[in-house]
C-alpha cells in the first residue's frame, strides 16, 4: 500500500509528498476507510457514553486542564522532584535532549547488559524516536507485544492511531499477516488470531533480556511511573525481563497520586470509553527485597526531543498538556476519511498536525498538514484537557505565511482580498465586475465549470452564482417597508433591548 508510512532505519519516519497526495490515496482505499470509520465511531460513541455516565464532565475536563496547566508551568520543579524520588527508589534516571540521545542511552544500556532481545509494550515515544529500527541495526531483536503494535511491526508499518495502532487494518488483513508469521493458514477469527499472538509473544517475554515500556504518567511525589494498558503485556514487559527501561516524555508528569486520579478518570474514558483500563501499573524502582517479581534494574529515560521548545510559547505551550488519549483523532472528520498515515508522521490526527511541526521546529516543511483541517473544533470539544487545537492550526498557518512559505496563487488571492475587502467602494465595484464576469459560467443559477480556482469546489458541488443585486443595493428599498412592519411592536422591543443592555453593562464602564 503506497499510502502507508513505512518504518525506516535511521530515517525520520516521514513520508514524502503532500498530505493532499497521501489523502487521495487513502480516499480510494475502501478497506481503510471502512475500518477507520467503524472503529473511530465506536470509540467516540464510547467516549460520549462514558462522559455522560461519569457526570459533570465539563468540570472533570476543567480540573484536568488546571492540573496540566499547573504542572507544565512548573515543569522544572516537578521534573527534579520526580527524578530525585525515582533515584531514591532505586531507578536510574537519564535525560535525553533529543531522540538520538534517547536511542544512544537505550543502546548503551542494552550493550552493557549484553542484551539480545528486547520486548516492548506500546509507546508512542518509542515510535517518535524510532527505537525499533535502532535496536535492530545494532543486532538486537526488538519485539512489540501490544497486539496492534505486533501486527503493524509484522507489516513493517508505523502506527496510524495513537491508541489503536492497527486501526487501518481489517480482520482479513490481520489474519493474512499472522498466517505468514505462523507459517500456517489462520482463520480470520479474533480468538484464533489473538491466541496465536499470545503463544508467540509468551516465548518472547520469557527469553527477553530487556523490557521497554512507555510512561502514561509520572508521579512526582513518589518518583513512580504509571502505565495504562488492556492486554497485560506491559505488566509482563516491566516485571519478567532482568532490565526495565521506561521511555518518558518530559511532559508526562503529574505532581501527586491525587492528581493521577483525575487523569485516570479522564484518560480511559476519552480514549476508549472504558471506566478504567484493564491494567494500570504504578511502578516505583526495581525489585526490592521481598518482592515476588520485578526487574533487577530499572531505567527511566526522560526525553525532550522538541518538547521544551513549546515552553513559554503563548500559542503552543498547551500542546504539552496532551495526555495522548486519541479522542481528537476519533472526533476528527478529516481523520475519519483519510486515516493516520496520510498525516505522514508518527502522530496523526489533529494533535499530530500540530505536534509534528512543533516538535520538529520546521513549520515550513510541514505547512500542508496544518491545512488538512476544516477548523471545525471537534478535536477541542473532545479533548479531556481542552487543548485548543483548532486555534493552533490557524497559528501554524500564520507562521507559515510569516516565514514566506506561501502558496503563490493563495498569496495573490489574499492580496486581492485585502484590496477589495478593506473598502466598501472597492467591494461594490468588484461585485459589479464579477457579476458580469460570471455570465458565461452560469446555468440555472449555478456554476458547474471545473476551471481555475473553481475546480476544487466544482469537482464535488455546484457553485451558486452571485445575486443579481447584492444586499447592499436593495437595502434602502427594503428599509422603507420595514419601518411599517416594525411599528406595532416597536415600543415593546425597545424596552427589552434597553433592559438587556443595562444587564450586560460591565460594572464601572461608561455607557459610551
Amino acid at each position, binding site marked *: 500500500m503506497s499510502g502507508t508510512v513505512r518504518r525506516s532505519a535511521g530515517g525520520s519516519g516521514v513520508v514524502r509528498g503532500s498530505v493532499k497526495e497521501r489523502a487521495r490515496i487513502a480516499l480510494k482505499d475502501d478497506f481503510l476507510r471502512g475500518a477507520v470509520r467503524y472503529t473511530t465511531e465506536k470509540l467516540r460513541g464510547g467516549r460520549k457514553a462514558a462522559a455522560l455516565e461519569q457526570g459533570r464532565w465539563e468540570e472533570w475536563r476543567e480540573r484536568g486542564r488546571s492540573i496540566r496547566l499547573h504542572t507544565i508551568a512548573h515543569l522544572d520543579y516537578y521534573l527534579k522532584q520526580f527524578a530525585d524520588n525515582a533515584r531514591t527508589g532505586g531507578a536510574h534516571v537519564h535525560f535525553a535532549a533529543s531522540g538520538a540521545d534517547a536511542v544512544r542511552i537505550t543502546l548503551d544500556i542494552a550493550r552493557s547488559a549484553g542484551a539480545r532481545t528486547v520486548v516492548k509494550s506500546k509507546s508512542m515515544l518509542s515510535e517518535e524516536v524510532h527505537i525499533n529500527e535502532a535496536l535492530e541495526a545494532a543486532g538486537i531483536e526488538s519485539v512489540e507485544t501490544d497486539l496492534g503494535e505486533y501486527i503493524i511491526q509484522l507489516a513493517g508499518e508505523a502506527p496510524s492511531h495513537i491508541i489503536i495502532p492497527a486501526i487501518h487494518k481489517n480482520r482479513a488483513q490481520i489474519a493474512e499477516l499472522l498466517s505468514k508469521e505462523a507459517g500456517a493458514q489462520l482463520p480470520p477469527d479474533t480468538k484464533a488470531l489473538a491466541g496465536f499472538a499470545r503463544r508467540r509473544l509468551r516465548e518472547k517475554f520469557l527469553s527477553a533480556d530487556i523490557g521497554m515500556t512507555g510512561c502514561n504518567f509520572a508521579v512526582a511525589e513518589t518518583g513512580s511511573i504509571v502505565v495504562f494498558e488492556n492486554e497485560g503485556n506491559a505488566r509482563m514487559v516491566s516485571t519478567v525481563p532482568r532490565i526495565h527501561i521506561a521511555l518518558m516524555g518530559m511532559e508526562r508528569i503529574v505532581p501527586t497520586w491525587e492528581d493521577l486520579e483525575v487523569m485516570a478518570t479522564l484518560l480511559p474514558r476519552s480514549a476508549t470509553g472504558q471506566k478504567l483500563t484493564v491494567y494500570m501499573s504504578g511502578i516505583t524502582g526495581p525489585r526490592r527485597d521481598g518482592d515476588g517479581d520485578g526487574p533487577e534494574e530499572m531505567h527511566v529515560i526522560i526525553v525532550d526531543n522538541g518538547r521544551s521548545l513549546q515552553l513559554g510559547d503563548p500559542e503552543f505551550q498547551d500542546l504539552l498538556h496532551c495526555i495522548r488519549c486519541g479522542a481528537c483523532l476519533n472526533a476528527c472528520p478529516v481523520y475519519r476519511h483519510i486515516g493516520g498515515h496520510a498525516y505522514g508522521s508518527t502522530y496523526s490526527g489533529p494533535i499530530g498536525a500540530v505536534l509534528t511541526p512543533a516538535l520538529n521546529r520546521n513549520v515550513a516543511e510541514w505547512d500542508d498538514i496544518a491545512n488538512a483541517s476544516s477548523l471545525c473544533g471537534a478535536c477541542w470539544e473532545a479533548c479531556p484537557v481542552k487543548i485548543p487545537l483548532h486555534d493552533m492550526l490557524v497559528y*501554524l498557518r500564520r507562521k507559515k505565511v510569516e516565514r514566506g512559505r506561501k502558496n503563490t496563487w493563495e498569496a495573490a488571492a489574499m492580496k486581492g482580498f485585502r484590496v477589495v475587502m478593506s473598502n466598501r467602494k472597492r467591494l461594490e465595484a468588484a461585485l459589479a465586475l464579477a457579476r458580469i464576469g460570471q455570465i458565461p459560467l452560469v446555468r440555472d443559477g449555478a456554476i458547474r465549470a471545473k476551471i481555475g480556482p473553481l475546480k476544487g469546489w466544482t469537482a464535488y458541488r455546484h457553485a451558486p452564482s452571485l445575486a443579481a443585486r447584492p444586499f447592499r443595493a436593495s437595502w434602502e428599498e427594503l428599509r422603507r417597508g420595514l419601518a411599517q412592519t416594525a411599528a406595532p411592536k416597536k415600543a415593546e422591543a425597545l424596552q427589552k433591548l434597553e433592559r438587556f443592555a443595562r444587564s450586560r453593562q460591565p460594572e464601572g464602564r461608561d455607557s459610551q
Partner: protein
Amino acid sequence: MKVSLFITCLCDAVYPRVGEAMAKVLARCGVEAEFPAVQTCCGQPAFNSGYWPEAAASAETLLEAFHDSDFVVAPSGSCCGMIHHYYPKLFENDPEKRERAERLAEKTYEFTQFLVNVLDIEDLGAVFPHKVTYHPSCHGSRLLGVREEPMKLLSGVRGLELVPLPHAEDCCGFGGTFAVKMSDISGAMVMEKTDHVLETEAEVLTGLDMGCLMNISGHLRYRGGPVRVMHLAELLEEGMAAAERPTMAGSERLGGDRL
C-alpha cells in the same frame, strides 16, 4: 437603541434573500435595524489561511461600521464566532483596536441568539408544515455555543416536523478555503453529510450559516438530491408571512414553492 445588521459578505453577494429575511423577522419583532454600508467581511478567509494583516484590513471595516451600535446581529455563527473568538487575538498588538474589538464582541449576536436571548422570543407564531432537518454548524455551536436557541425557535413553529440529522455534529467539510485547497477530503466529508441529510427524508434542510449550507446544497444539487436548503431566518420569515395570510395558514399550498 441602535441595532445594526452585519450581513456578512457571503449573504451580501450571494444570498441577499437571507439578509432580507433576517431584517424582516426582526422588524416583525419590533426591531427596526439599520445597515451600515461601510462593512465588508469579518476577515475569516484571510485569517484562517494565515494572512492576518489582510484579515485585519477587512475586520477594521466592521470596527468602524458598528462603533456606535448597541447591538450587532448577523445570520452566521461562524462570522460572529470570528468576532468573539479571534478579534481580540487578531488585534492583540494594537491596544486601541483591541479595545474596540472587545467592545464589538460584547455586543455581537448570532441571529437566533439575538431573538431568544436578547429579545426573549421563542415562538414567532410561524407556520411551516414541512418535514425539516437541522445542521448545527461547527463554529456556531462550538465557538459560540449556539445549541439550544435554534431548537427553541424551531419547536415554536406550527406544523413543522423536526427530524434529527444523524451525526449532526460532524463538519460538512466546508471550512472556507479548505473546501478548495483540500477538495478531495472536503468532498468526502460533504458526501457523508448529504447521505445523512437524504437519510432523514426531510423536505427542508435548515441551519444558521450560509457557508455550510452553500456547501451542502451545492453537493445536493450536484448529486440531484430533492431537498430544499434554507437559512433558518428564511424559514421563519416564510412561516411568519404564511401565518399572517389567513387562507394559507396550515394549508398544503405552502408545499408548492419547493425548489
